[in-house]
């Protein structure tokens, strides 16, 4: 995205302001015929980027959205009081009975439950392997849900690396661990790989599940024998042991002091363009929001350009903050701008979020959202006590990191102190929306949200389920293991924008489906 304000339409040769999908396609096809991708790969790439971006934008338009199986229903009213389900516990139901809302035969809910429930003396690996062979797994929907359940079940039972060791599975040990040996786990991983491609499809895994990198580390840990064990096994005499240990220590020291050792030349990925001075300036600006610093020249020009393209009065153009707000909102919500939306962005958190978003756009950062360690969450109750949001400390004093997933941007923040994790920050506007639509029945919302709702444009693939599950710990207990357990129940295992919402205890369940600029409540689950 250069200074061209009419991008991507200019690249496609489109005059229309809000072209339809058909118009975009026609323009792309015609440009493609004029261009030869073999002879002009850069030209083709530029065309392709513009094309994909234009399609992204149009996907949000209600009248131009790709065909959804069901037309959007009426706007939501308050939640009707429903009779609570007389059988809240999942029993072995007749497999032919279908739960309309979840779309799952009720009997298969038990497959998911069986991931967690261990009989005494039963090996976890054996139990899971058996589950994988269940004939019901032939159904792709069921398989997807069980897969997610197993993933999170296993991930939960790892502990982070310490010292020389990386992340490992907790085996044959404490309560929270897995009742399985290393060999059994290796076999199970092979089975999971052949069934789902867990160790042969990194791209899908990264998109579908959080902390995949950690998971791979733990799987790798299954293959490695701890060095000390190795040492002990091969050593015959204590003297030899000592000598070898000393040798080992010398080698390690040597490696530390020799920076050219080839072992360490492999790079570490860095998703922030920190080297660029310009970016540094912008980051400093973000951090000191409200203070004297200004964004970089490039960013200022960029934002000004956006502002004037939107016809923003010149008096306000110089106030970067305001024009950022204005432009973001206009970009996000086409059509008229409700005046009170502005006020929602008074909070430093939101502002920082938006600025971060625009800076990310400016530098076109492209990294998938990495879901973060749950133990860096902090629950902040709303002033009226009805709802809480996950946040990290005071945003003003945090560093922020910016990500772009496909189709949106997320800002994450890091708590002060020697923290290691990043936490996506939710804009209040989204939280408010959900709260409004659920009639204040929301308890907790946590996760990351992109600026553009691209992940929501295929409605069958993403639904929000709000319901109470008796297995979930209550919100007040912050040591809630925020696992994909909820994600699975919410049918979001394939989604890269994890969103979870909990209802207070003993509330009926309802399903919210995102439509262009909000949510539509559809059916009731039990």
């Amino acid at each position, binding site marked *: 995205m250069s200074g061209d304000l009419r991008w991507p339409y200019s690249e496609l040769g489109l005059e229309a302001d809000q072209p339809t999908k058909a118009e975009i*396609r*026609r323009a*792309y*096809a*015609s440009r*493609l*015929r004029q261009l*030869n*991708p*073999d002879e002009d*790969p*850069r030209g*083709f*790439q530029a065309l*392709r980027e513009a094309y994909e971006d234009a399609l992204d934008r149009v996907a949000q338009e209600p009248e131009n959205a790709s*065909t959804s*199986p069901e037309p959007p229903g009426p706007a939501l009213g308050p939640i009707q009081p429903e009779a609570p389900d007389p059988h809240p516990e999942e029993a072995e139901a007749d497999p032919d009975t279908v739960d309309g809302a979840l779309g799952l035969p009720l009997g298969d809910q038990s497959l998911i439950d069986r991931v967690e429930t261990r009989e005494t003396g039963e090996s976890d690996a054996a139990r899971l392997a058996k589950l994988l062979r269940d004939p019901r797994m032939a159904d*792709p929907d069921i398989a997807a849900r069980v897969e997610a359940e197993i993933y999170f079940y296993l991930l939960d039972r790892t502990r982070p*690396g*310490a*010292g*020389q*060791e*990386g*992340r490992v599975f907790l085996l044959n040990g404490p309560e929270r661990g897995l009742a399985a040996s290393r060999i059994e786990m290796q076999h199970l991983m092979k089975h999971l790989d052949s*069934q789902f*491609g867990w*160790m*042969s*499809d*990194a*791209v*899908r*895994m990264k998109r579908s599940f959080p902390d*995949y*990198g950690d998971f*791979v*580390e733990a799987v*790798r840990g299954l293959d490695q024998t701890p060095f000390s064990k190795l040492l002990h096994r091969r050593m015959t005499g204590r003297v030899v042991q000592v000598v070898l240990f000393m040798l080992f220590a010398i080698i390690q020291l040597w490696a530390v002091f020799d*920076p*050219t050792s*080839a*072992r*360490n*030349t*492999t*790079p*570490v*990925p*860095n*998703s*922030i*363009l*920190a*080297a660029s001075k310009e970016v540094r300036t912008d980051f400093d600006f973000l951090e000191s929001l409200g203070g004297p610093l200004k964004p970089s020249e490039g960013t200022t020009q960029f934002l000004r350009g956006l502002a004037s393209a939107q016809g923003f009065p010149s008096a306000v153009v110089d106030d970067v903050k305001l024009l950022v707000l204005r432009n973001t909102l206009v970009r996000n919500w086409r059509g008229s701008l409700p005046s009170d939306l502005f006020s929602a962005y008074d909070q430093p958190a939101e502002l920082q979020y938006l600025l971060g978003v625009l800076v990310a756009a400016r530098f076109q950062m*492209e990294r998938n959202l990495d879901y973060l360690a749950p133990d860096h969450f902090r629950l902040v109750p709303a002033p009226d006590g009805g709802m809480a949001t996950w946040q990290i400390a005071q945003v003003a004093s945090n560093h922020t990191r910016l990500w772009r997933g496909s189709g949106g941007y997320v800002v994450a923040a890091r708590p002060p102190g020697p923290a290691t994790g990043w936490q996506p920050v939710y804009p209040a506007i989204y939280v408010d929306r959900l709260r409004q639509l659920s009639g204040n029945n929301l308890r907790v919302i946590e996760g990351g949200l992109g600026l553009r709702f691209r992940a929501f444009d*295929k409605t*069958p*693939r993403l639904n929000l389920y709000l319901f109470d599950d008796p297995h979930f710990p209550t919100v007040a207990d912050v040591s809630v293991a925020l696992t994909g357990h909820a994600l699975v129940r919410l049918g979001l295992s*394939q989604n890269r924008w994890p969103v979870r919402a909990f209802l207070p205890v003993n509330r009926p369940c309802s399903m919210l489906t995102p439509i262009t600029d909000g949510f539509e409540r559809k059916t009731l689950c039990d």
Partner: protein
Amino acid sequence: MYFGIDLGTTNSLISVFENGRPRVLGGSQPLFPSVVSVMDGTLVLGAPARERLVSHPEHTAAAFKRAMGTKKAFRLGWKQYDAQELSALILRALRQRALEETGVAPQDVVVSVPAYFNQIQRNATRAAAIAAGLNPIRLVNEPTAAAIAYGLQDIAAEGHTLVVDLGGGTFDVSIVEVFEKVIEVKASSGDAFLGGEDFTRALFNRLAQEFDLAPKTDAERALLWNAAEVLKLGLTRAQEASCPLPWRDGARALSITREAFTDASASLIQRLRLPIERAIHDAGLSRDEIDRVVLVGGATRMPLVRTLVARLTGKLPESGLDPDQVVALGAATQAALIARDAGCDDVVMTDVSAFSLGFEVARRVGDRIEQGYFEPVIERNTTIPVSREFVFQTTQKGQREILFELFQGEAPLVRDNIALGKLLVAVPRNRADYEIVIARLSYDSSGLIEIDTKVASTGATRSIVITDLTGGLSERELDARRKTLAALKVHPREGAENVALSARLERCFAMALGEDRVTIQDMLALFRQALERQHLSEIAALREQIGQTLDQFEAGYVR
């Protein structure tokens, strides 16, 4: 005139695009079996070689496409050949066929490869084409070629098509969308080691087990394999198939039902599912958004494949164009599209790379740095040509260089992916902070990969182009190969029919029992004598007669 070649595991074809349409060459027998045999010091290719698979297994090689890119040696009599050489022989024969039929010796050709062939396998294919005296201007993905053939036929029909291509040795799945005369491949997936041959093997194993057969010699293996093949084909027509099998300890009556075959192929069927599901997922579609399902490749004739595909997609799969020929037709069309021939009527096509490309990176694990992780920079199913940037930093302060090692594949650890090349980039020695290098990875439609790096702090750049498009062979080596191949003695076509018939007689003899066996033995003797007398008209007449008798025999072989 544009030429396209389908270099298949079981059969190969050559086709030509002229006057706005593609057509296969080879008259009534366009399929050229990808089999090479050696007979009295000369090479026999195609149909005659195929007949010799049963009678002379240690002198015949088939399904070598599966070994492309490897150094596996195929023993033919006293000599050894690798997969590239054998493929080159087939390609040369196809070239000859084109010359004879059209009067034009093909130079520039488009050769098809499975979408799921990796860079090394593709390079081997290019090398084989060059050794055959051809110029492979493009390698087209097989399902894309099929999509082009179908697409061109009905370019006005817009929508999403799922192409399921199960050949003799490879399995490819592609999702293609057609709109505004653009054929756009959205996703490709597959299994480069799954094909009709594997189903034959499953049946082979099941028969050996059920009928208590333990083949000890190459000849016995070949015979049982042949039985498995004919039974497999028989099951396409009926629920049950049976055939006799002469065996060392007494004849058997082999029989198999569709259910038993499906049961024996259970793990293969599972392997068919995954790429289909993955392609649909990668294309960002749901099952219902697929408008059309098309079957390509002879192995899709198996009812169990059709049933599986129908079940997975909820649609009745089509095979309106001959599944054996459609890839060749598409390859020739692709050649015409590249040249922007007027006969293509403004149709344009874009494809994707089926594999992710990326670098090896390290992770902070505990207190140390652990290498071996794969960081994809160009994710699979990105439309090509494509160029993507990624930012890397040093693992230690004061580090002097970064090694960029390029890998292709989907696994999270580089040890399970394919190494394609490396680039060492020097960085300034910075004891205070980490150094950052921005790497740009570009991949174009001819398979060329380029890495451009820039050190952020100094602006220093370094580039490398992974031009190893011919599997590590230099220009001179390729030329030498070409000459060697050209010098090999190939049995002249005039005698090929007789070779084929003799071999066919020997094969049927091995298959037959009792009276049939005696009859075939007599015919074999008769034919040999006629060949000695060398009266061409007599030989031709006998060929006709024997051919018909053998046709009857083979038709009634499987019940």
